[in-house]
């Protein structure tokens, strides 16, 4: 972290009242709200993707509640919420059959999707960005926040990444030093497992007293299917096969837009079997008749992956610190049983904006009223009501967890007089490879199922090759004795982009990192058993270039 050492003469700086790191729903909603509250407050948003939306992966069925509070005339303004949910189905899968869960709205009322829309979150973010720009927010895509600037224990801004450094660490002819963006308040809206957020949490000990965060990895494909098979607004979810009872996970399939289908699979990253490959699970579930029906005769047009925070209320850290706050998925405001984080991300951004405007007017260093504003909002009520569901799955397994969830929801209506806790961080849950069974994964058929490399190709991922490797392996000997000897290199299986490869398995196994394939999902940063891998930002604008359907 950069502590009071900015006397670098080459380095330029820009000054804003508020700097927001991350152009997802949380960051953009905060920016819009700030400018609505005061046209005096100058605001900028930086985004590491080459454009807004380039790094966004989401389902997404969204609840328009926060959007309607932020921009009441969103429909008139042409927000890209075009496909209302029409039919909703939840299946418990067995390898060849399925059971449709009856009375979904009673058993899992949090899943009721009446009034919700199937959207491309990337498209929604692009639209939110135009709304923000109309309010004179400066939006800078292609710039990654690489470091936090802290002076006298106060966050006073961030530093963008240097450009034009070679793999050897030396400056290339086109070298451009990063810029300091200085601000009264800095909001971290980096989404799940933000790299700067991680530093802030550690620096201020924000997670003291909170449960360890638990995550999921979502892997998504977008398909274009023949018009006669398309049922706009159809929303399907599954659980059960192919996950065993101890592993949290399931598939989604949404019909939306013009003959598009969003299909994907989420695996809880507290899984225990190091042989598990979320990518291959996602591939093989497509072969199940429930999903095959939609995808057959279609063509896959996009691919992406992203981790999500699954812990909920118990894992939310302290939200504010001198000079700023954490918002959105950076803070963990995702409603897991609902599988929705967009409306909560936006709401948290709006509340933070209000707290910041208040602190700005009264010249306070810490926008501390944010926490109270959250506690008194529907956001808190909503997360409070479902707080026991995900930990119940972690503790009791999928089937008993589902029973518990039904009990907690139907009998206690989310007001059970206890709160279940998470005991382990996700990197602590793997069991030795020798104790676990290898799942059987069918070979890709090239029409319905695919391999990793052809998938990454569809994510349009680009990294300047001649730059330092942005996935930092602290110790390769630790990798050998733990990752290889005990777990047989789980990173080669959980990474959805084929970044990790073991060379010379027979004689002297070493880890090879194909950093240019990385789709910025953050799973390795979360799941590496000794936290030996740290994800850092590569050059701004690098990474996936997801198209609008994502």
């Amino acid at each position: 972290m950069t502590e009071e050492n900015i006397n670098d003469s080459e380095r330029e700086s820009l000054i804003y009242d508020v700097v927001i790191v991350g152009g997802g729903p949380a960051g953009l909603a905060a920016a819009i709200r700030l400018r609505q509250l005061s046209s005096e407050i100058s605001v900028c948003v930086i985004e590491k993707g080459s454009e807004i939306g380039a790094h966004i992966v989401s389902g997404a069925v969204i609840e328009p509640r926060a959007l309607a509070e932020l921009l009441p005339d969103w429909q008139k303004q042409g927000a890209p919420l075009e496909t209302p949910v029409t039919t909703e189905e939840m299946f418990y899968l067995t390898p060849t059959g399925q059971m449709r869960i009856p009375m979904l709205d009673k058993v899992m009322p949090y899943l009721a999707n009446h009034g919700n829309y199937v959207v491309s979150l990337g498209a929604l973010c692009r639209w939110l960005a135009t709304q923000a720009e109309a309010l004179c927010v400066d939006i800078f895509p292609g710039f990654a926040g690489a470091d936090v600037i802290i002076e006298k224990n106060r966050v006073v801004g961030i530093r963008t990444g240097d450009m034009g450094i070679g793999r050897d660490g030396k400056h290339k002819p086109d070298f451009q030093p990063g810029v300091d963006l200085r601000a009264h308040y800095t909001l971290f809206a980096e989404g799940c497992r933000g790299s700067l957020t991680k530093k802030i949490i550690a620096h201020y000990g924000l997670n003291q007293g909170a449960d360890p965060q638990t995550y999921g990895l979502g892997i998504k494909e977008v398909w274009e299917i023949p018009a006669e098979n398309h049922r706009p607004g159809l929303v399907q979810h599954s659980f059960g096969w192919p996950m065993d009872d101890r592993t949290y996970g399931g598939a989604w399939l949404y019909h939306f837009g013009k003959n598009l289908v969003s299909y994907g699979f989420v695996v809880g990253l507290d899984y225990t079997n190091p042989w598990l490959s979320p990518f291959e699970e996602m591939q093989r579930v497509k072969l199940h008749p429930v999903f095959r029906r939609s995808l057959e005769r279609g063509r896959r047009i996009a691919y992406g992956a992203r981790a999500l925070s699954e812990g909920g209320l118990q894992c939310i850290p302290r939200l504010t610190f001198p000079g700023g706050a954490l918002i959105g998925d950076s803070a963990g405001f995702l409603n897991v049983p609902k599988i929705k984080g967009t409306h909560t991300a936006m709401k948290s951004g709006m509340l933070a904006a209000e707290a910041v405007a208040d602190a700005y007017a009264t010249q306070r260093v810490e926008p501390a009223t944010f926490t109270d504003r959250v506690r008194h909002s529907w956001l808190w009520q909503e997360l409070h009501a479902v707080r026991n569901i995900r930990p119940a799955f972690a503790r009791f397994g999928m089937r008993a967890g589902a029973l518990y969830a039904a009990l907690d929801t139907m009998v206690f209506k989310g007001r059970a007089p206890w709160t279940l806790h998470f005991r382990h961080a996700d990197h602590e849950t793997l069991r030795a490879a020798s104790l676990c069974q290898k799942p059987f994964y069918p070979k890709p058929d090239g029409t319905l199922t695919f391999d990793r490399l052809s998938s990454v190709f569809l994510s349009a991922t680009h990294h300047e090759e001649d730059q330092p490797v942005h996935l930092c392996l602290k110790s390769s000997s630790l990798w050998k004795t733990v990752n290889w000897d005990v777990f047989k290199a789980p990173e080669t299986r959980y990474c959805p982009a084929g970044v990790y490869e073991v060379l010379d398995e027979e004689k002297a196994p070493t880890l090879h990192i194909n950093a240019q394939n990385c789709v910025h999902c953050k799973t390795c940063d979360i799941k590496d058993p000794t936290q030996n891998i740290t994800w850092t930002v590569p050059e701004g604008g690098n990474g996936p270039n997801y198209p609008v359907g994502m």
Partner: protein
Amino acid sequence: MKILVPVKRVVDFNIKPRVKSDGSGVETAGLKMSMNPFDEIAVEEAVRLREKGIASEVVVVSIGVQQAQETLRTAMAMGADRALLVLSEESPEPLAVAKVLMKLVEKEQPHLVILGKQAIDDDMNATGQMLAGLLGWAQATFVSKIEIAENRARVHREIDGGLEELSLKLPAVITADLRLNEPRYATLPNIMKAKKKPIETLNAADLGVDMMPRLQILSVAEPANKKACVLVESVSELVEKLRNEAKVL
């Protein structure tokens, strides 16, 4: 000396475009658009010439939809001084573009026009040549080095198996090849400055140029999927396959 640099907004080079399901063209809706990479090289060269004191002004122009503004802002963030946007239907053809550029050359009176050698979307490689023809100016295509002295441009052209050195009288049209330079990153302060630089908007129709397409696209198809590799057991099997499957023997 004034330099005019035309820039085109194209589907970003990282994106794998796909053919529309009805085969009528390439799906561009919702794809990331950027400046044609060869045009970036052209802008960079023009800006360097100005930084060396050889050029006095760099004017960029784009012909296309309103959003081409963003491409012009990028060029100005790299250092171009001002911009012209000529509004027209999506994707005008090279001849129409060359005619518009000719009108702008009359208006702006530059001594040098530097273009990308081709746009990566339709790979036409024609606009620079057509413009030089219409203006009756000297031209050099596929250029990897430019030196300007005494009202002449000394250039290297990339040709099959080597380099060709030419000297042209100015005014001239030059098209940029990949090795001409490595474009700079636009920095945040320069992006801020570019927001304040002027963009003048014109209509193609007002320039009196007929933008009607003269080419008709019959169909667009994706390259055939590569067939999976097979391992043959023996030489005789290989010969058999070459004869009966590949039909090359």
